[in-house]
């Protein structure tokens, strides 16, 4: 009985990985947009921009994409969206059902997998296990890219890691890092802008605000998703994802205006 798989050597496998990675990496050393954070807002933004023919690169510090989109509240893997978020689910081909008036529920893993696939199908490129370290600043402190490193480098003791990061250039950078608002906070560290902090007051309607405040906070830098809440000090909200999807769409519109 013959072998099922073709015969390849270890070096062939290594060369295939290295070659494919480097060829792609070279193309995305300069992009139209770098999206920091591969959660639902970042993926949605990337999908929309790539679908419009823009070079979109997502930088994700974890191995997996999707952020909290895999599960809803209390570790239960059903995600909810409020109207009109279900239209995005429809658009992505994610099955859902109506839970009550204006509230829709979908399977978390199915929704997340579909969103990731939609972003990849649109042409988004992804650097996972890659952590955002700093911003590239141009004249008048305009954001012109991101400085990144391998995520595991962060976990190593400083005295044994002299691993310098590398810089990626882009016309626009999107902060889609969730509550951390890592890019905006980095700008704050540099004294360029100031976040308002994450509001603790619980207001169910704050989903609207996340979408409304999605936009440019500094030349070259836009925020979306929960990073918007941290940047502008918006009230807390429940575990529904409509705002993440719509904020991702909104930020893509804002970026397109700037490109």
């Amino acid at each position: 009985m013959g072998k099922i798989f073709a015969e390849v050597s270890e070096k062939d496998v290594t060369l295939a990985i290295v070659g494919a990675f480097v060829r792609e990496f070279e193309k995305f050393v300069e992009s139209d947009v770098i999206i920091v954070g591969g959660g639902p807002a970042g993926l949605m933004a990337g999908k929309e921009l790539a679908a419009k023919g823009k070079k979109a690169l997502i930088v994700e510090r974890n191995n997996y994409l999707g952020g909290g989109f895999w599960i809803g509240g209390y570790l239960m893997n059903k995600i909810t969206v409020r109207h009109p978020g279900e239209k995005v689910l429809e658009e992505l081909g994610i099955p859902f059902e109506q839970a009550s008036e204006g509230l829709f529920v979908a399977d978390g893993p199915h929704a997340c997998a579909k969103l990731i696939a939609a972003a990849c199908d649109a042409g988004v490129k992804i650097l996972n296990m890659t952590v955002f370290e700093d911003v590239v600043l141009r004249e008048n402190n305009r954001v012109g890219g991101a400085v990144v490193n391998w995520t595991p480098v962060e976990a190593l003791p400083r005295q044994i890691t002299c691993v310098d990061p590398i810089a990626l250039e882009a016309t626009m950078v999107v902060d889609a890092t969730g509550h951390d608002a890592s890019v905006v906070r980095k700008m704050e560290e540099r004294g360029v802008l100031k976040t308002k902090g994450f509001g603790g007051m619980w207001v169910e309607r704050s989903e609207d605000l996340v979408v409304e405040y999605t936009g440019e906070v500094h030349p070259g830098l836009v925020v979306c998703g929960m990073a918007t809440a941290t940047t502008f000090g918006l009230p807390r909200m429940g575990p529904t994802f409509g705002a993440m999807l719509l904020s991702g769409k909104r930020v893509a519109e804002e970026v397109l205006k700037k490109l």
Partner: protein
Amino acid sequence: MMLFPCLRPSQEVIREAVRIVTSWTGEVIREQECLYQTTPSATEDLAGLRVINPDNPDLNANPFPVEIAFERRTREDCQCGKGAVYAGVHLAALLGKGLFERGVLWGDRPLFITRDYIATFDRDDLRWHLRYAVFSFPVIISLPGIIEGPARPREYYLLRGQGIPDEMMPDSLKDRYLIANDSRLPRVLAGILLQAFFYYQSGDPFCADPLCSLYNAHWQEELLRSQRDEPYIVCPGHRQALEKEERWLKG
């Protein structure tokens, strides 16, 4: 009284509440346009009145351009009620300036009903608290504040903390707090309008009697208990005050 209501989409609730309070007091409430619309200069300042951190009395100093653009867009398109929380006393001062410029005086007893949240900073526990009303010039009544300002029963928060969504709360519990589009809202709002009426009459909108519509409720159950027609709409003392002015037209 002059009423500057946000009529979208709460027109029916507001008009029913006005009808109720007029039937109690005979007070003519003249409906005007939305106060945000008539105070266009307020839009830029509004961004600075947003409450950012419930534990910090500081407001939103140096708002981003996107925040100011949001306020302008929201007010121009009559889209308030997106969930932002504003400092109630400061908001009243801002809108009051616009009212004075329009020649509206204290004697006109202006009321502003909004779909935005309003909060006041409590010096006792050093926190901002959502309120259903701020009694100032004008009196500001927050429609979502009626639902989310007074706290819900403790059991609600216990269940919520266990991940139970609102839709799955037991019916027996749901009856104990208001929700959006609640059929009890017009009557509750009427009671709050009556508080505004007394504020302009006497300077004091509240009553210590937990069954009087003028009771300053901090819990939803207190609010629902006080905003009923039984055993009385207002306590005997406040009824007497109304009767002295031949105001009490009901019963």
